[in-house]
């Protein structure tokens, strides 16, 4: 009897211990997947992305098509929402267990590159596994670091302004691309005065950080210096920008900070609510905002600084795909084929419907043109405008960007609430940024 108890206890323990031990996903699942044990030439790769239900459905449908055309490759999908995505991905990175194809955000890519987790794709592009012949360089500029391509854009967008077309016609406002902050300020003052209380001309939509990056580029300066050890702009440039922003707010030309914050928080849009005439935006944002609005909305480039020397515009990937460097070569090859499929395959893109951003291959854009709805079509056209007007490539932000950005937003908040003078804000922010970037 006692013996029985002992054995039962021991075996129970063993079972539980086995259940608890980290299953070494690399060894176990890879061995089978690499093709050593499960049929010849079969490669199984993991592909992870963040998104909403729509993206999950579309992507999985695209993957079905991919597997059909590449019977030797199976793709395991891993998808979640934005927040849990990064927690999960960093945990996988810490355990050297990254998926073969990883959907990446511009703000995070540098961290993966500098830790050697992103594969240099140049050879694959040269060999044609990933065919980039149909892609204008401006779509990829941001993802090339020191000559190495670390990711392929999964769709592009650009900084833009969204405006109420009906209202612009009513007030006879005509802002041709290249218009200046002064011109914009005058027109917006006119509208907000005529529309009265509860209406503001321009809404900065908490996108001041992006807007300022665009502003600084016109003075041939970037937000970060080349080594990513400090900010790369002069205090005067930021002062010029902040002065414009605060003056507009003080004069009622731009929405006060608390209103912007609340509208943003609740997922609304001032332009769609007809409480503002124009707002900063990412170009693909038009699709969402238009569904909330009754009026016809349009896209325009961002305003130019009148004393600027260069174009502030650049085309940026909404998101990109990198290949993890710590998976086997066979998997890297399969991953490259998947990325090529997403980039160039017409049918795949008909399924994906440009939901990740404007497709980077010209022929894909052309063939999709008649099929997508008019608003999406507008974002396509806008990118063509931007492609022409794009300035120097914008480098990827250094690791620590999210922290610097948070500090920038906090400084701006204090300045907008008049808790800090502009000069004080600039001083304290530049100090804080240096400290973060030198950690």
């Amino acid at each position, binding site marked *: 009897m006692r013996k029985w108890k002992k054995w039962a*206890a021991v075996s129970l323990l063993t079972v539980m211990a086995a259940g608890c031990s980290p299953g070494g996903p690399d060894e176990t699942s890879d061995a089978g997947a690499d093709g050593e044990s499960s049929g010849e030439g079969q490669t199984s790769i993991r592909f992870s992305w963040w998104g909403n239900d729509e993206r999950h459905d579309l992507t999985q449908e695209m993957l079905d098509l991919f597997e059909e055309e590449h019977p030797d490759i199976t793709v395991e999908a891993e998808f979640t929402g934005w927040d849990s995505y990064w927690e999960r991905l960093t945990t996988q990175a810490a355990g050297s267990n990254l998926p073969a194809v990883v959907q990446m955000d511009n703000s995070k890519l540098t961290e993966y590159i500098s830790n050697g987790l992103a594969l240099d794709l140049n050879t694959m592009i040269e060999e044609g596994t990933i065919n980039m012949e149909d892609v204008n360089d401006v779509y990829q500029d941001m993802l090339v670091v020191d000559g190495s391509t670390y990711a392929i854009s999964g769709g592009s967008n650009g900084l833009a302004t969204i405006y109420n077309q009906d209202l612009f016609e009513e007030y006879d406002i005509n802002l041709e691309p290249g218009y200046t902050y002064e011109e914009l300020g005058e027109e917006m003052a006119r509208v907000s005065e005529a529309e009265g209380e509860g209406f503001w001309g321009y809404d900065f939509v908490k996108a001041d950080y992006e807007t300022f990056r665009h502003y600084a580029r016109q003075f041939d300066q970037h937000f970060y210096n080349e080594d990513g050890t400090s900010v790369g702009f002069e205090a005067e440039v930021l002062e010029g920008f902040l002065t414009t922003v605060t003056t507009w707010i003080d004069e009622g030309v731009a929405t006060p900070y*608390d*209103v912007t914050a*609340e509208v943003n928080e609740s997922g609304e849009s001032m332009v769609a609510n007809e409480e503002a005439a124009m707002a900063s935006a990412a170009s693909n944002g038009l699709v969402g905002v238009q569904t909330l609005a009754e009026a016809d909305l349009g896209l325009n480039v961002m305003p130019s600084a009148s004393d600027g020397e260069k174009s502030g515009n650049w085309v940026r990937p909404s998101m990109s795909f990198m290949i993890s460097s710590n998976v086997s070569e066979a998997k890297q090859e399969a991953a490259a084929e998947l990325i090529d499929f997403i980039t160039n395959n017409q049918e795949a893109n008909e399924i994906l419907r440009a939901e990740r951003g404007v497709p980077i291959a010209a022929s894909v854009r052309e063939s999709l043109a008649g099929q997508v709805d008019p608003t999406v079509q507008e974002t396509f056209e806008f990118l063509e405008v931007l492609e022409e007007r794009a300035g120097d490539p914008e480098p990827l932000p250094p690791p620590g960007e999210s922290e610097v950005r*948070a500090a920038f937003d906090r400084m701006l908040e204090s300045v907008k609430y008049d808790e800090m003078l502009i000069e004080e804000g600039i001083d304290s922010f530049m100090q804080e940024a240096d400290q973060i970037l030198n950690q």
Partner: protein
Amino acid sequence: MKTSEPLTEKEITPEFVEKERKRRNLRESLTGYAMISPWLIGFFGLIIGPMIYSFILSFTDYDMLSAPQWTGFSNYVELFTNDPRFIQSLQATFTFVVIAIPLKLAFSLFLALLFNTGRKGSGIFTTIYYVPSIIGGSVAISVVWRQMFGRDGAVNTMLDAWGLDTISFFGNSSAAMSILIILIVWQFGAPMIIFLAGLRQIPDDLYEAASVDGAGMIRKFIKVTIPMLTPIIFFNLVMETINGFMTFTQAFLITGGGPRDSTLFYAVYLYEVAFEFLNMGYASAMAWILLVIIGAFTLLIFKSSTFWVHYD
């Protein structure tokens, strides 16, 4: 095996009996440990292990993507000497705990008194009033709260209808703090139930004696109810204080720490540092400081209890 064979008398010495008993005891306890092993494995693998790891990490610089780098006490030094947001998060958390917890306890005691009449139906009301406690910490309620106090939310619509000025709850520091306090106070259910149980324990003859001596309602409450209830108050105070320091979901989802960090609770800042800025070492150091702070407060309440808690 041996035990099943008949033993000669010579073998059954007192030493043998003693030895045999020890062996049985050992076996018994081994079986016992094996039986509770699911819990033990969980405790060591999921709590003690990670705690030790986080303690080690708190002396390193770790971004999760590359190996941790030993930096000694620099995280701790940095926190106390060069991080205004850390100080701000401490201030916000203390303000919150000092206001919200006493309010919550007072409110739950008040309701417990109301429900302690023994009237018909008071049980149903107790149940209904307990509901916020179950759902109050959930994401759904936080989202509802945010809508309610939003610019076009229910509260502002009502203020507007009454001809009052609308309030920008998320743009104003004290308004933002207030709605979080209200939400926490609203989850009064758990302490209320415990108070109710405590109230029922107070013998009636104490009240009768007090009545005979001519004590009124208020006097009875101060002289009988409160003293008899101090062990319960003490328990609730400890539990709620600990929970208060760890408040996360509500602040993270409703105000996001804003405006201008005025509701940047400790746990919210910790999360930001760990998962948004990927400074795991720094965040681990913060977690250990939080543990020390909570420990210190609990100890303080325990020490002070000799002066105000009356057992019996």
